[in-house]
């Protein structure tokens, strides 16, 4: 599967700003193909997260198209796009993304109930083990630290074995050892056929990528 961004851009209208039209992402092209890790680097506020959310079907671009196997994903109805997100995409959002009423394991298994697939117990346990959260399976998100919650979100994305993984600052709250494990797991997912896009401002992430992109003031550049 190939995901292609064609001249996608995003601008926001600031109601009382001096320059009331703010262009977060300037028209750009990007292609994500299975089996590779793409790393998108850049300073804070350069438009990395906006581009990632547009590619992952979560934010409609102001202009341009996002094509999955030549099909514009934003031309789909919300139901179909949601279905596509849960079957082919997995997003690791910034910050702590947990459903507070569910335990850690239930949070990880939640996408399976949407797909209607039974989780492979071995895979889930092994991913949790590698991320060092297997002992937290029955814990509540409220009892976890920021780093643990981050690893839970990563496990949730990896366990469903999606075609595309969008990781927004996956190593932000992690120590060096855990950062290395996470990046290795993302690399492994790509080696197993997934297309991985990592948004990061940490140089370490670039070592695991096949392709490196830089973003500056909403403009994408290939270094």
């Amino acid at each position, binding site marked *: 599967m190939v995901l292609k961004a064609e001249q996608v851009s995003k601008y926001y209208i600031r109601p009382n700003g001096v320059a009331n039209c703010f262009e977060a992402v300037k028209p750009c092209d990007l292609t994500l193909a299975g089996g590779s890790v793409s790393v998108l680097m850049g300073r804070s506020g350069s438009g990395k*997260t906006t581009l990632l*959310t547009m590619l992952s079907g*979560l934010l409609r671009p102001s202009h341009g198209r996002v094509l999955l196997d030549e099909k514009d994903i934003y031309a789909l109805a919300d139901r179909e796009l*949601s279905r596509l*997100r849960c079957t082919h*995409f997995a997003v690791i*959002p910034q910050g702590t993304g947990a459903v507070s*009423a*569910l335990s850690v394991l239930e949070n990880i298994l939640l996408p399976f109930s*949407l797909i209607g697939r039974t989780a492979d117990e071995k895979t889930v346990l092994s991913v949790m083990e590698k991320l060092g959260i297997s002992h937290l399976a029955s814990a509540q998100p409220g009892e976890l630290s920021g780093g643990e919650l981050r690893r839970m979100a990563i496990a949730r994305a990896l366990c469903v074995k999606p075609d595309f993984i969008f990781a927004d600052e996956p190593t932000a709250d992690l120590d060096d050892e855990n950062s290395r494990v996470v990046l290795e797991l993302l690399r492994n997912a790509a080696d197993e056929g997934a297309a991985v896009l990592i948004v990061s401002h940490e140089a370490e992430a670039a070592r695991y990528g096949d392709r490196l992109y830089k973003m500056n003031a909403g403009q994408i550049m290939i270094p």
Partner: protein
Amino acid sequence: MSISKLPLRNILRHPGRTTAIAILVAVLSFSLLSGSILVYSLNSGLRSLENRLGADIIVLPDSARSKVNIDNLYLQGTTGYYYMSTAKQEEITKRDGIAAASGQVFLATLRADCCSMPVQVIGFDPETDFTVQPWIAERAKNDLSLNEVVVGSKVSAGVGESLRIYGISCRVAARLDATGTGLDTAVYCTGETMAVLLNAAREMNHELKITTDPSKVVSAVYLRVDPAFSVEDVANDINIHVRKVQAVKTRSVISGVSDSLGGVASTIKALIIGVWALSFLLLAAAFMLLGGERKREYAVLRVIGVSRKRLSGIALKEALFVSVLGGLIGIALSLLIVLNFHSLIEKALALPFLLPSGRNIMLFAVSTLVCVCIAGPLSAMVSALKLSRADTGIILREGV
């Protein structure tokens, strides 16, 4: 864990949040059910009063005015005793426009052995009576014989038991249905039994001053007016031409009660509307605040592939579950309080008050539950739609 179980899990895992919203919904259901039962009870009390007042005019001796409030004659029971001679009854009966007339004798006991409160004994003439016997006939199979009585629903004596009134043992032949009025504390007997009771009372109670033969007195004369005459004219005619009596039109008693009842019912309805409007707004605000607080959580669900429709469904289902919980709490509290304190409410309102039957109460309870189950999710609708329409990307970008 299936996603369909998520609303229930959200409720169970956040008891504080759930309790706060459930209390608001409980206020809604409590006010609706209690108000409905009160308004219904007042209306059926009035209907039963209308049914039981079979006469167009009641003529009382002037002395009655100092003993009872004539307007409240049937609401709180007539605990006084006042008499006029049967000659006066004959004089009244001879006036023009009277189709039927029957005298009744009242006797108030200060203490009967059935209970420690005064009981009103009403003696009627079986040959001329047209007001009491129709509804006694619904309960008593045979005519009442000497020292036999029929008791109102609130007189605690069972059928076949004996009731001692002024030392005379009277057998209870039947119990009447509740009316929600003072008639429920009355004991009915024939004029013959009444004469015996009056004699006994005269010996025991010094205040009871009947100088003539007890069988020759009446307390009130009930009149049915000939359709060719107007009730107003006949009542005026009696008030002008028969001395020392007062003719009261029963319609005016009922319309007086109806007016007060209308006032009380309107107040209750206004209160229900006020409470509902306020609670609904509070609920909507609570769901809105809650939605803001859970924006990030909803965004996570969107990220993993939950559609907008499904997300709204989760929020509405959660509101529905809390509404059912709160609704049931409110209903249980309402039934507990209204059914237990109904006598106090009746006393405080001083209006005919007849509780609905068990079946009707159930019907009211179910309707209330349906109402709050619609109102709860409806108040959550705006917040649910707003959340599901919000751009997930923007929420994630905000990094809340």
